[in-house]
């Protein structure tokens, strides 16, 4: 039995690595994704512009404008001359926010009355807009505090000491690259397993396997191991790229990470085999992979935090292996995740694997005969 499986594994590896198209499919999309995603997968707010309309020429508004301009939060600050121009700048997405002063802003403010300014945000990009709003509020708040009561304690750096642990400068790439290690590993293991049976079906070699002494379970194992090895190899490659090219700090334990990776891949391979048992053609396998990938990514906490989702959707995410792997991979990289936390996120994947593999095997047997 071992010999038969070994023969199958060797064949599978050779077939995958010798087929130029399969080799390309294994290497090119992951690399493009790693590069693109690493830089694009950001929700950081940088390089944005605001528009200022200041019909007041007084000292207070001029000073505030200077502060907004000098804050470094906004790449482009445009001064416009009419309310229409403000609206236009936002419509055309040249500015994500605009600040409009009252015509008698300085006069009111300096005379101790409440002055007001209007901030308009582009709700089409609500995430960035909210952050921009935060910047503006902070700058204005500080200005008020300093002007009104010099020397008095206010919300300022003197009162608050901000600290970002694990990633002091909030480098976005420290978040994306480790996450991508998990996502791309998912993609590879899913793609290899789901396509491999469909390919043999289309080429007619699957019948050869079925008439041989191989048992369905052996075919399953023979399909699992190569996908497993390939995914692990690619994951290793991406770990190296992350550490040596992207210079992401690696604080945790490598053996722990591999232990988790192994469990993760096993659970995914189960899903891949399930897809391949269902699909008759490579096209169906491709669409099947796709149908699992997109929700899998969206429900993993990568695109948006899980706690923002409705409660019932959060429950669904417990069945998503990627959810756990995300915590582990980022944690091991940046936080030196302790073993008990790694385990707390590993056993659910183990449970998923213990479910998907037998179900896939069952399906596979049912389809084989």
């Amino acid at each position, binding site marked *: 039995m071992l010999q038969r499986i070994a023969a199958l594994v060797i064949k599978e590896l050779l077939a995958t690595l010798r087929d130029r198209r399969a080799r390309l499919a294994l290497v090119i999309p992951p690399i493009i994704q790693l590069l693109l995603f690493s830089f694009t997968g950001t929700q950081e707010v940088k390089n944005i512009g605001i528009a200022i309309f200041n019909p007041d020429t007084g000292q207070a508004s001029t000073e505030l404008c200077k502060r907004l301009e000098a804050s470094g939060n906004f790449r482009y600050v445009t001064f416009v001359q009419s309310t229409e121009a403000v609206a236009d700048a936002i419509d055309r997405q040249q500015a994500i926010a605009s600040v409009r002063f009252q015509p008698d802003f300085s006069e009111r403010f300096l005379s101790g009355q409440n002055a007001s300014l209007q901030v308009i945000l582009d709700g089409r990009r609500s995430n960035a807009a909210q952050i921009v709003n935060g910047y503006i509020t902070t700058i204005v708040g500080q200005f008020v505090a300093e002007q009104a009561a010099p020397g008095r304690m206010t919300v300022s750096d003197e009162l608050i000491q901000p600290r*970002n642990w694990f990633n002091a400068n909030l480098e976005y790439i420290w978040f994306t690259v480790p996450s991508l290690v998990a996502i791309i590993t998912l993609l590879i293991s899913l793609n290899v397993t789901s396509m491999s049976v469909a390919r043999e079906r289309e080429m007619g070699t699957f019948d050869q396997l079925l008439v041989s002494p191989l048992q369905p379970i052996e075919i399953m194992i023979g399909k699992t191991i190569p996908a497993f090895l390939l995914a692990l190899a690619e994951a290793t490659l991406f770990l190296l790229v992350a550490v040596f090219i992207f210079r992401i700090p690696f604080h945790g334990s490598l053996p722990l990470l591999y232990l988790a990776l192994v469990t993760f891949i096993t659970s995914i391979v189960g899903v891949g085999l399930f897809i391949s048992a269902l699909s008759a053609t490579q096209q169906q396998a491709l669409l099947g992979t796709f149908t699992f990938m997109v929700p899998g990514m969206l429900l993993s906490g990568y695109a948006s935090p899980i706690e*923002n989702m409705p409660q019932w959707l959060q429950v669904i995410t417990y069945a998503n292996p990627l959810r756990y792997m995300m915590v582990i991979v980022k944690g091991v990289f940046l936080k030196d995740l302790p073993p008990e936390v790694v385990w707390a996120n590993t056993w659910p994947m183990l449970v998923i694997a213990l479910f998907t593999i037998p179900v896939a095997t069952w399906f596979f047997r049912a389809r084989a005969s």
Partner: protein
Amino acid sequence: MKIEIESRDPQRGALSERSSSGNRRVETGAASSDSRSFAVEKFNPRRLLALIRKEGVQILRDPSSILIAFILPVILLFLFGYAVSLDSTKLRVGVVMEERTPVSESLMAALRDSKYFTVTPGFTLKEMEDQLVAGKLRGILVIPVNFSRLFTGNNGGGDTAARLQIIADGSEPNTASFVQNYIRAAIGGWQTARALDQGANAPPNIEIETRMWFNPSLESKNYLVPGSIAIVMTLIGTLLTSLVVAREWERGTMEALMATPVSIQELVLGKLIPYFLLGFGSMSFCTLVSVGIFHTPLRGSAIVLALVTSAFLAACLGQGLFISTLAKSQFIAGQAALILGFLPSFQLSGFIFEIRSMPAPIQALTYLFPARYFVQALHTIFLAGDVGAVLWRDGLILVGFAAVFFLLTSRVTRKKLD
């Protein structure tokens, strides 16, 4: 009568013989006096209609095209509607009270009352740290031992007193900046409220009147849902189209078609029109679902939406056709469509990820894919309305893309197998 068979290929000189019997002069393009005409028609509506009808039957009979056009969009809209919410509504933060004084209690209460936080109280940093590492907390506010003294200013030695510490989990940078900003804002609010309570003469203030245009309730689904329509359109236009053309090559039906009088224009249009209609149907369906079920606003007019969608679909279909003329196997066509169609529309369109925040070379790259313009136009139509300046520009660029792809396709497509 004489027969004259003329060679139209003088270099090859393939046909120079003349025969003395027979009664017909063979001439391409010329109407003959014969009962049958060999006039080579470049365009014949009847042939085109036949191709469209054939494609229509195939679409209706293949569950996978229906899956991509109508089922997958619902799943995507649903997920983008519910799962991907970029608005951090409830941040899990820990508050460490190293001192228990009325001041610290009141700050704690202020955070608790805020709708932005789920507060876990504690007394030592150590217990909170573990939870931060495990990802159970997103941030920690530390109220230090001598905080109230510092704050009330009883003691002149402010420098020696510890400050409030906001610790955020930097492994999620986006959430971390939310944590920093929100806690800071909450403290500010608390401080002002306290000052007023203590009867301090209210300092002159600047009232900030904030207006969120287009999306006042600040729901990210309002811009994610229109954005996801772009993804579905790409899948139909590029992925499905390139797969079905590749399938005709693999099954040998393309060879049979090429041996008929069908012209290349008809072949191309015969693929374009059905998938255009399918994409358009899917688009209408998506719009109905997103407006009807997810209650996204649709502020622009349906006509403008239809026009811009048409331009984008044309660009995608052009891309799909172009891919399939180069890649004649489903496997390669599928991979190429994913890399050139799906990934850009997901990552480079500005639909989830801010284009302006990307490094300059990648920002430049986004201009090369139609998805960027379509997502921008969709956001405008759904949330802002018919803003002529944006829509004209984006629409024309999309038409330009379509034109380029069709030009390329017609350049590389010949009715030949080699």
